[in-house]
């Protein structure tokens, strides 16, 4: 019994063009974000995971199923793609309903599940309208309803927040969280980092078809030894604290915050820094708070790739 989504040395080439190369992943339950600029291989990875494209090399397994077995694979997988086209002439309801009927469900159960999924994405009022007349956000939501409709264990969502207004975004994020909380695997791709930063249990950072880092954001950050950690310390005596910190060899740089009530410190050894902080606290300097300033996805991504394509 396998409880992970596994990529083993997976490469995908479209002719001469690299999709992804030598990908090794083991994705646990929870929300996993694939992050990278356009063309980094996020969609290819998702299409590989769902069998829409085949790996040129390597093996992929989704829990206990092979990607070559769509009949069983899609009983546990729901995929909301980025392809913004639908079978012609269908209403939103028919789109979800037909998908369920394709899966072999009887009319009554398909109807029930379709309405439940449509309710979950708040699209009941528009469900009887033709999809061709939907706005971008509505099309995004009906695709999501389709992916959710058969209550899959693995939910793969390609840029699921694209085209949604802020209210719909927060509703969808809540939906992803509740789905993940039930022990499901929610795989989200995005090139908007702050979007996934707050909801992801783990991230997979991609660049030019390569996985450059994976794991929990904080763990990924700590793996980047060559890059100093930035820490924001709030206190009433920032200059004294700065002087003391500079006595430690692992401190690289200290700058006083412009409000004179804190400082930003760069250290090459975070563990030693925290030990040092304990000593300093005992010496009488009143420290209000200590917080890492660069363990968000954006910082990690910039350290790893130095990409300017990432949307902030």
């Amino acid at each position: 019994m396998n409880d992970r989504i596994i990529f083993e040395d997976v490469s995908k080439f479209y002719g001469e063009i690299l999709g992804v190369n030598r990908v090794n992943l083991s994705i646990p339950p929870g929300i996993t974000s694939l992050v990278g600029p356009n063309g980094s291989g996020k969609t290819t990875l998702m299409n590989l995971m769902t069998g829409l494209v085949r790996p040129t090399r390597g093996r992929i397994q989704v829990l206990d199923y092979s990607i070559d077995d769509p009949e069983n694979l899609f009983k546990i997988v729901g995929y909301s793609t980025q392809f913004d086209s639908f079978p012609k002439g269908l209403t939103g309801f028919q789109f979800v309903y037909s998908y369920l009927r394709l899966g072999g469900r009887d009319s009554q159960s398909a109807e029930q599940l379709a309405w439940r999924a449509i309710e979950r994405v708040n699209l009941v009022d528009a469900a009887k309208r033709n999809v061709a007349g939907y706005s971008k956000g509505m099309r995004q939501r009906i695709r999501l309803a389709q992916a959710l409709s058969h209550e899959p264990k693995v939910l793969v969502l390609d840029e699921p927040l694209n085209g949604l207004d802020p209210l719909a975004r927060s509703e969808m994020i809540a939906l992803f969280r509740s789905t993940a909380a039930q022990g499901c695997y929610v795989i989200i791709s995005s090139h908007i980092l702050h979007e996934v930063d707050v909801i992801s249990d783990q991230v997979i950072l991609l660049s030019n078809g390569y996985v450059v880092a994976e794991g929990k954001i904080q763990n990924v950050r700590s793996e980047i030894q060559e890059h100093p950690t930035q820490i924001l310390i709030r206190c009433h005596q920032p200059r004294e604290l700065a002087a003391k910190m500079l006595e430690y060899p692992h401190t690289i740089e200290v700058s006083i915050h412009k409000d004179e009530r804190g400082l930003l410190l760069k250290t090459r050894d975070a563990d030693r820094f925290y030990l040092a902080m304990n000593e300093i606290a005992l010496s009488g300097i009143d420290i209000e708070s200590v917080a890492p300033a660069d363990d968000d996805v954006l910082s990690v991504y910039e350290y790893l790739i130095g990409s300017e394509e990432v949307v902030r």
Partner: protein
Amino acid sequence: MKKIWWAQIKAVIRLEMKKTFFAKRGLWIYVLAAMPVMLFVAYAIVSSHQQSRSANIARQGERQLSYQDLRAVHSGMTTEEVIAALGKPSASFDWSENRPSPTKPGVILNVLHEDYHYSDGQNDLFVGIADGKVENIHIRHANNLGQDSIMFAGVFQFFFLRLGIFFGCLGIFMNLFRGEILDRSLHFYFLAPVRREVVMAGKFLAGLLATCTIFVTSEILQTVAFLWHFPAGARDVYLYHNHGLEHAAIYLGVTVLACVGYGAFFLVAGMMFKNPILPAAAILIWEGINPFLPAVLRHFSVIYYLKSLCPVDIPSPPGTSPIFALLVSNADPVAPPIAIVGVLVVALIALYVSSLQVRRLEINYTAE
């Protein structure tokens, strides 16, 4: 077959029917299917008009004429002799012509022409008289079901089968996968918990249902239009005593088999080729050169079996070139049961290749 597969096939068919029947880009298929119907309707209208005119001419004539009476007129008879034999014509037309004298050079003669039209009610005799003597004779025979059934067979084999059904199947079956790849909507099927072979089978059956409905309807209408203008008695004799009904049923069967055979070919072609013109041209040429192929290769063709099933042989007109005669005739027909199995085997081979192809098919719309 698993019960769920059949439910899934029905779901695919439901989704496909609207697209195959009502797609704007498929409108030309209806035109293609309607063309032979229009041809036979036009033929029936013209024939009916001629029949009623012949009947009128016969009715208005001085006496009731038989076919033998019409045949009695020959070149060189005088106007008086013709009128003595057939009576005064009910329809005639005269005109004059200035013609150089054959005996006196430089002399121009004024020649009086008379055209007489007789009829026995079905066959028409046109007599051309110049200067009081019969110069030319033309007998237009009444429509004959036996002769017309050969014409029907010609239209069926050379237009309906080789062009109508062929291109109709191309339009419908090639679009089953290729059309959705171009519309970027094929992934809808590939994301469902359904075997791809089941999707393929559903799409094939939807295509078959559409083409059979369109072309079988066309074939029925053609038969109705073809028989419509004949007298009821002649129709009954043809249908019930001269294998007419049997032939009509065979034509319908051949139409269905053609849809199965060409449908399977174009289904696989739609998955393998981006441009439908290339496989269409290749299959059209392959089917066209079938009579010239070695016996072994001839078996891998739909038309080879369909020709063997067609109930009416089309005779080659005298003086036909051997190459054309080979195209028209079926020099090496197979027995009907073998022909039916042959088409089905060819279709099954194509469907097997399709099933392999559909498993390999990837969703990569940007490459299209």
